[in-house]
């Protein structure tokens, strides 16, 4: 099919009218469609993209709605997130049906065309990152390895150090390790429960882990201090590693002050992080 064929031209013009590419409908002169019927196609398109984006970025778009309402059109911002989505479609709609691709393109659109929104709500960026990781935890292909059952977890918790350090683990590819500029995990939780916290309420940075619960397969959220987070950062994604080797690498990666701390603290931090991560699905048995 050549791009200059009648069919190609017709579909391209229909798409121009549907997406209002470049922010403008080329009108009946391009391709005649009754206004009431074109409106149905617009409605279906917006509903379709809107439902996918509100599924992917449920709390981020809730926050955006609240902020856009407060902005009342300042800085050229639209009145609500639905209008934001309409503008997005006229600039860079997705090329496939993939929710993940649509989410990534929308994020890119926000950063390049709605930067004022981040200026008013800086924590929105961290929230978008957190919810994109949530989508990854829900949809990423099945992880290699397996998760321990309750009996295995209990046995690990009571095992001697040598037995524990001989266990082979891997970091689940469905899990995300996030260094966020804002405390998006708590913000996400509050938005889910109907609160819209004031600007600046979650201004501190956090290290978050979003993983797939091995039992329910639902996304789980956790925040970690720097030393514990570094255990997961050190574990290679999808590649088995013996815990003893992971521990050595982790200690080498710690800041000088933590490297100098006693062995009891190091072992407790390491073991607690590993056990908790095996439970949350961020780590799996190889």
């Amino acid at each position: 099919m050549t791009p200059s064929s009648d069919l190609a031209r017709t579909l391209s013009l229909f798409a121009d009218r549907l997406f209002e590419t470049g922010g403008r409908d080329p009108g009946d002169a391009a391709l005649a469609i009754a206004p009431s019927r074109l409106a149905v196609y617009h409605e279906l398109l917006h509903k379709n993209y809107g439902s996918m984006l509100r599924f992917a970025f449920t709390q981020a778009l809730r926050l955006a709605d609240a902020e856009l309402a407060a902005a009342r059109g300042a800085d050229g911002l639209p009145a609500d997130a639905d209008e934001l989505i309409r503008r997005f479609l006229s600039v860079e709609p997705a090329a496939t049906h993939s929710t993940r691709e649509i989410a990534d393109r929308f994020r890119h659109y926000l950063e390049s065309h709605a930067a004022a929104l981040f200026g008013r709500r800086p924590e929105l960026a961290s929230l978008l990152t957190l919810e994109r990781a949530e989508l990854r935890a829900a949809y990423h292909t099945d992880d290699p390895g397996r998760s321990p059952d309750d009996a295995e977890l209990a046995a690990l918790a009571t095992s001697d150090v040598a037995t524990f350090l001989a266990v082979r683990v891997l970091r689940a590819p469905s899990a995300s390790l996030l260094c966020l500029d804002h405390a998006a995990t708590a913000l996400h939780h509050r938005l889910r429960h109907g609160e819209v916290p004031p600007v600046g309420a979650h201004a501190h940075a956090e290290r978050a882990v979003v993983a797939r619960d091995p039992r329910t397969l639902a996304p789980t959220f956790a925040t970690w201090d720097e030393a514990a987070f570094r255990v997961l950062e050190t574990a290679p994604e999808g590649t088995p590693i013996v815990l003893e080797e992971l521990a050595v690498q982790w200690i080498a990666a710690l800041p000088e002050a933590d490297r100098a701390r006693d062995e009891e603290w190091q072992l407790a931090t390491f073991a607690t992080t590993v056990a908790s991560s095996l439970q949350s699905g961020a780590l799996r048995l190889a």
Partner: protein
Amino acid sequence: MVSERGPNFGLPALGVSVGLRKPHIARVLAERPALSFFEFCPENVMDRGGRSRRDLLAVAAHYPMVSHGVGLGIGSVDALDRAYLGSLRTLLRETGALWASDHLCWNRADGRSSNDLLPLPFTEEAVHHTAARIREVQEFLGVPFLVENISTYTVLPGAEMSEGEFTRAVLEEADCGLLLDVNNVYVNWRNNGSDPHAFLREIPAGRVGQMHMAGHDDRGEVCVDTHGSPVRDEVWALFREALAHTGPTSVIIEWDSNIPSLDRLLDEAAAARAIYDEVTSHVAVERTGAAR
């Protein structure tokens, strides 16, 4: 009525069932309702792991499955999405799907994906283009392939034939089956004035391998195919007429928005089954008589 492959496009006539929807899966797995098959939407699982995949494969372990896609956009002019097709073929194999279907429509132009089912112009050029792509897809997937007549809200300028003639031409040139959506036939009658009885006469009945029944939103000037309400009486009437043309087939009740309880959905399927049994038993008697 009978194609070279035999009636019903050579596919098993599985009777009446429902589309598999997420809110119902736990009960389906726990109670295993007496249904002859399930239809699933592959885009909800393709390239994914996690819960949606686990649940679908668990259902597929107990029921015959058929796949009904919404993302192929077979009539689009943009290149066929090979990654999409590869993922679909993998999922068809994993679920043991008896056949696959998608829509006789386009969804993508110049790299823009509508994620919706858009109308093709009823032209010779569109027939040849779409049929060639269907042949390629059918060969690649390795299972029988059906296309579904879509609901439309406009007929694009430059039509050289009716929707029925267009559909027939594509089916025959592509040598594929038809998933006859009876609700869409009704919706297009209301929206575009296309004669539903003529449409049913124009399509090759022997190529119908499956049917869809669904509800729509009647807004007066336009009917929108929402799959969010019970099947309307006018559509039940067309269902009888369609079954009289085709004989036994496989029928799915689609309900995608305002999804009701599984019990309510099964009630709708029971209503369809009562009509299906009544009409197809007459068709069988007529065929037996004709054979004598």
